[in-house]
């Protein structure tokens, strides 16, 4: 009843092709973004900002990058952690080595170097496919793990071999409190999400999806596989690099190479698959699931235990978290292999017909 396209006539190509063609969609998105910028800061406390919202946003951003590569272009990559690391360390070097470097430029340059790394390690995708490519991208993961520990230049030759940044500010706005960090990251995420959404709706996005569906057929109709695959790697690594730089600068503040190890790569792949391959909205759902589930389980399990008068030890809670998390993943994949985004689109579909059943 409310979610109807009735009466919305498009009179120009531009209005027909716009990103949120249905007026209700536009209103909803603007409302969500407004709530995120204005409502959440009023309601959330410091713990929510620092431990839940900021990691959620940064992981969602990284997941958008991974989704472009895995979901839209069909190239399975397990090296995302490495590209986050490249983004983080190169942003660190640009920020510290160059006098008065603006923060945003440093973060974007981290993304730029990650893009270069992505293109180089994406070259195998021209020959190698599927699971072979997935394991080949692990070469990137382990290589960069090693590089950032071995080559002291990346950590400014510090004896400890770690990197630390402080005193972040943009145009005079000090990014010190958790709310500042949240708003800063939110800005990045909104911009990149909109950019990504537009990219995948455009010709390059369609090229990626053609490659994903059947790359031989795509090359037959004139899509150059090299161009499409390498641009997918480039754009994806750029976004992942920026996310990595944000993770290091804003969330951690001081980091070592193990913060971006293979577990991070797996985590990003989880987010993308649980959220939904080939869906930008899905990245947010997946990231929310991955960030919140361990914390909820951590709080819920002792509480359930206390209901039954059983004291559950910390180790047991840790093990149970693992078991439940694993079981949930399998259950989700069985119930809905297309991820949470499918539920979302089903809900929208039902909303179009509401209150009629069909």
């Amino acid at each position, binding site marked *: 009843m409310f979610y109807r396209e009735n009466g919305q006539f498009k009179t120009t190509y531009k209005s027909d092709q716009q990103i949120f063609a249905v007026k209700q969609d536009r209103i909803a998105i603007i409302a969500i973004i407004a709530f995120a910028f204005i409502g959440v800061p009023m309601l959330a*406390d*410091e*713990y*929510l900002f*620092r*431990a*839940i919202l900021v*990691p959620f946003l940064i992981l969602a951003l990284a997941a958008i990058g991974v989704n472009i590569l895995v979901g839209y272009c069909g190239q399975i990559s397990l090296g995302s952690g490495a590209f986050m690391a490249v983004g983080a360390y190169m942003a660190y070097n640009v920020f*510290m080595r160059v006098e008065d470097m603006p923060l945003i430029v440093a973060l974007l340059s981290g993304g730029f170097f990650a893009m270069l790394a992505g293109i180089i390690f994406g070259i195998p995708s021209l020959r190698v496919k599927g699971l072979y490519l997935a394991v080949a991208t692990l070469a990137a993961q382990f290589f960069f*793990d*090693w590089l950032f*520990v*071995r080559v002291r230049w990346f950590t*400014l030759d*510090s*004896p*400890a*071999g*770690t990197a*630390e*940044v*402080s*005193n972040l500010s943009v145009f005079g706005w000090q990014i*010190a409190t958790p709310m500042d960090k949240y708003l800063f990251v939110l800005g990045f995420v909104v911009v990149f999400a909109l950019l990504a959404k537009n990219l995948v709706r455009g010709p390059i996005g369609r090229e990626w999806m053609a490659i994903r569906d059947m790359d031989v057929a795509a090359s037959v109709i004139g899509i150059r596989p090299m161009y499409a695959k390498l641009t997918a790697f480039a754009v994806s690594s750029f976004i992942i690099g920026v996310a990595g730089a944000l993770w290091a600068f804003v*969330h*951690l*503040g*001081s*980091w*070592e*190479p*193990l*913060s971006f190890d293979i*577990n991070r790569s797996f985590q990003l792949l989880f987010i993308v698959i649980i959220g939904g391959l080939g869906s930008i909205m899905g990245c947010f759902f997946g990231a929310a699931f991955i960030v*919140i589930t*361990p*914390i*909820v389980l*951590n*709080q*819920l399990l002792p*509480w359930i235990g206390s209901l039954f008068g059983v004291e559950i*030890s*910390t*180790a047991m*809670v*840790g*093990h149970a978290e*693992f078991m439940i998390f694993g079981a949930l993943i399998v259950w989700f994949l069985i119930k809905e292999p297309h991820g949470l985004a499918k539920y979302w689109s089903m809900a929208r579909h039902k909303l179009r017909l509401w209150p009629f059943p069909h």
Partner: protein
Amino acid sequence: MRLRQLALSAVVAVAALTSALTTSLAMAQAPVQFFPSLTGRTGAVAPNAAPFANGYADYMKLVNARGGINGVQTLVEECETAYATDRGVECYERLKARHGGATVFQPLSTGITFALMPRLAVDKIPMITSGYGRSDTADGAIFPWVFPLLGHYWIAGDVVLQHIANRSGGWANLRGKTIAVVYHDSPFGREVLPIINRRAEMHGFTVLALPVPPPGVEQRAIWLQIRQQRPDFVIMQTWGVMTATAIRQAVATGFPRDRMFGTWWSGAEPDLRDIGADARGYSAVMMQHGQARDSEVVRQILAQVHDRGQGTGPRAEVGDVLYMRGVVGAMLAVEGVFRAQERFGRGRHVTGEQARWGYENLNITQARLDQLGFAGVLRGPIVTSCRNHVGTAMMRIHTWNGSGFDWSSDWLQADMNVINRMVTASAESFARDNNITRRTEPGC
């Protein structure tokens, strides 16, 4: 079916909402001193990290059994991190304001330590990094909130080299020799290299640095290289399965174990127990305490905690090296609060900021240590100040005899002249890079 699904999702949503928005309940009862414990009870770090958490919790219970900190009871809440940095950060954020505010954090994991360091000044909570973390945090004028009490890796490296020099008949006899350093390829492992390189410059021995990529289950190539290069001694800065694998590979390639020396995270029972007699002769430098089954504090813990059924962890573990490290960590945490209470009010709750003052002004005499039950375990005095966040520099070496440890050296003191110069230089460089001004209070 739909109703069931709806009900289930409603329950999950409510649970998620309540747990996400939970804040700490106001305590109307007697004040409590909250000591959060970031544990590593699952995953790869569990065998070495679980005993620490057990010792920490047990000593805190003992303090309560003795009457608390001048009447203020201690409260420990654990949060499992498995040494993953982002889980550590989440645990920190969740626990820092609970139960009246966290008194001090002791993260153990290098990654978590580094991630928490920038937050301490903002949240006004000190951190004790007893025997780990950055060695230059010994300079409290630049790192006011971090306390590497009892020792750090530069002290460890120096003492190990002193022991090797003693065994060779003096520093001069090290000239021309080769010392291999097998280390965990990470900031934790690398931390020991600067002091070893410095001493190599001073005394003319060659350093053969052999990094081992974590987790270190594959070390054959490293030990083949050692077999080829035939260094005179091997120093190990390893952790967990890497230590045991290294010793097994040493056995497999025939390198004599009595020429191998670990640091205090590479020389405990979980690493050596399963190798047994083959590891005989392997030594490690200990941050004052080693295995302490016969000590008074262990006796008290067994009597007042375990015998009353309140023991954390298995009884057989009480007195092991890593268990004692947890006990000592808890003792230092509590002593800082005692000291802070002397200034800010006996029998009252102490804030993080006040506790920081306590840790910076410690004066734990041998008499006090004996009174607490640490006679023969720790050697006082432990005296901290703004410029010296370590408090002491006395270490000793223990050697594995096939089933347990024997002390194989006297008390050795690290050369603080050499080390302090390195600490100041490194801390100043850090301060320059991060725009930190040196504290200028009297005593700094």
